[in-house]
């Protein structure tokens, strides 16, 4: 377990340190949510209705920022070779890197969401539901993103590949997160029904993402 937390600590120190780019996602999220009311116009009812969806689209895209460097940096400087020789399997290394990435870039989105939700005229119940779905859903997006990050690292291709690979995989997360939120506000389905599916999707992603990422890294090693 020492090796696992060493990877988590190092990756967090790297992304939170100078030039690490952890703040980029939150700034992007903030920009999207700030711009939307100007584009939609001063219709508070409309804003409140589409607010959860806007927040989720912003968070989804913000979660993808920085993924393309997640493995590429370690491939380029030789760290991945040495990491491969740890007694810890490559799957756990990938999971540790995913966890660190989420703590540094995903968790701030969840924390910023309530303040941004106020700008979209969301009622308290909707804010609670959005924050809860983001707390469960953003790890799912990050861990699905590990697959794209591994491909980007292995084949030295940048961000476009990530968006093309990861967004289709993240669509179910988006659907169930937004439907859970609207269920909490207007019904008729109880909040728990889509939320449990979202939980299932998150667990699925957290287990399978690192396995697929490790397989991609191994396959491309040369």
């Amino acid at each position, binding site marked *: 377990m*020492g090796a696992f937390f*060493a990877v988590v600590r190092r990756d967090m*120190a*790297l992304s939170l340190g100078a030039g690490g780019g952890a703040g980029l996602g939150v700034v992007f999220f903030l920009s999207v949510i700030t711009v939307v009311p100007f584009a939609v116009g001063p219709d508070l009812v409309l804003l409140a209705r589409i607010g959860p969806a806007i927040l989720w689209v912003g968070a989804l895209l913000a979660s993808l920022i920085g993924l393309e460097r997640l493995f590429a940096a370690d491939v380029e*400087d030789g760290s991945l070779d*040495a990491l*491969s020789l740890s007694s810890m399997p490559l799957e756990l290394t990938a999971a540790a890197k995913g966890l660190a990435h989420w703590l540094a870039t995903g968790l701030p989105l969840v924390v910023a969401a309530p303040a941004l939700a106020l700008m979209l005229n969301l009622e308290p119940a909707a804010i609670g539901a959005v924050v809860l779905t983001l707390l469960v859903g953003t790890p799912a997006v990050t861990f699905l993103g590990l697959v794209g990050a591994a491909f980007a690292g292995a084949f030295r291709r940048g961000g476009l590949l990530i968006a093309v690979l990861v967004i289709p995989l993240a669509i179910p997360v988006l659907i169930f997160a937004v439907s859970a939120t609207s269920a909490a506000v207007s019904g008729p389905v109880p909040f728990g029904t889509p939320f449990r599916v979202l939980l299932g999707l998150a667990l699925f992603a957290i287990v399978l993402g690192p396995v697929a990422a490790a397989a991609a890294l191994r396959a491309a090693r*040369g």
Partner: protein
Amino acid sequence: MTVPPITALRGEGLSCRRGFKTLFQNLDLQAEAGRALVVTGPNGVGKSSLLRILAGLLEPSAGAVRLAGCAAEAGLREQVHYLGHDDALKGALTVRANLEFWRAVLGPTGLSVDEALEEVGLGGLGRLRASVLSAGQKRRLAIARLLVSRRAVWILDEPTTALDVRAQARFAAFGRAHLAEGGIVIAATHAPLDLGESAGLDLTAQGSNAAGADLGELEP
């Protein structure tokens, strides 16, 4: 000398194809504990590919790498140090943090971080960011990785690049000490490296023929 946990590393019938080119075919080699194996040959002949195969970082197109000895079943991955062309350092972290990271990841079985920094001549520089080090100092920090975690097999690809003459001699001394403890050293190098009595493997002779390795003696 006690019996080392790993007595030999063997490559059996190794072949390597990159694209359409066959770098070597049906290559047998053996590196014994206490005796370095020095791989030589011109650029592009497949030295780095061979070393990556021996470290388990690259799948050979045919053949297998095996360890002999009582600790052999623990697997290649946990017995091997691989020092490649890249130093595997993060410039944004301090010298100390870099080495502490590798000590935790590779297993804290060797020297402490401070002792290892002292050994490679970086004592007192632990608080600097690794990005401000010179190329040679970065190399020394990469070498310190071999010292903080004790592993039987050292696989070294041009280990002394960027090192000055004194640091090269110091590194050769680390290698000899590792061999004296019953370790295995496999090195590809252009610069002469005094690793004591060693076996040589010239990859030029391999080409695409099916001959076994030429395990002639090299005078130290």
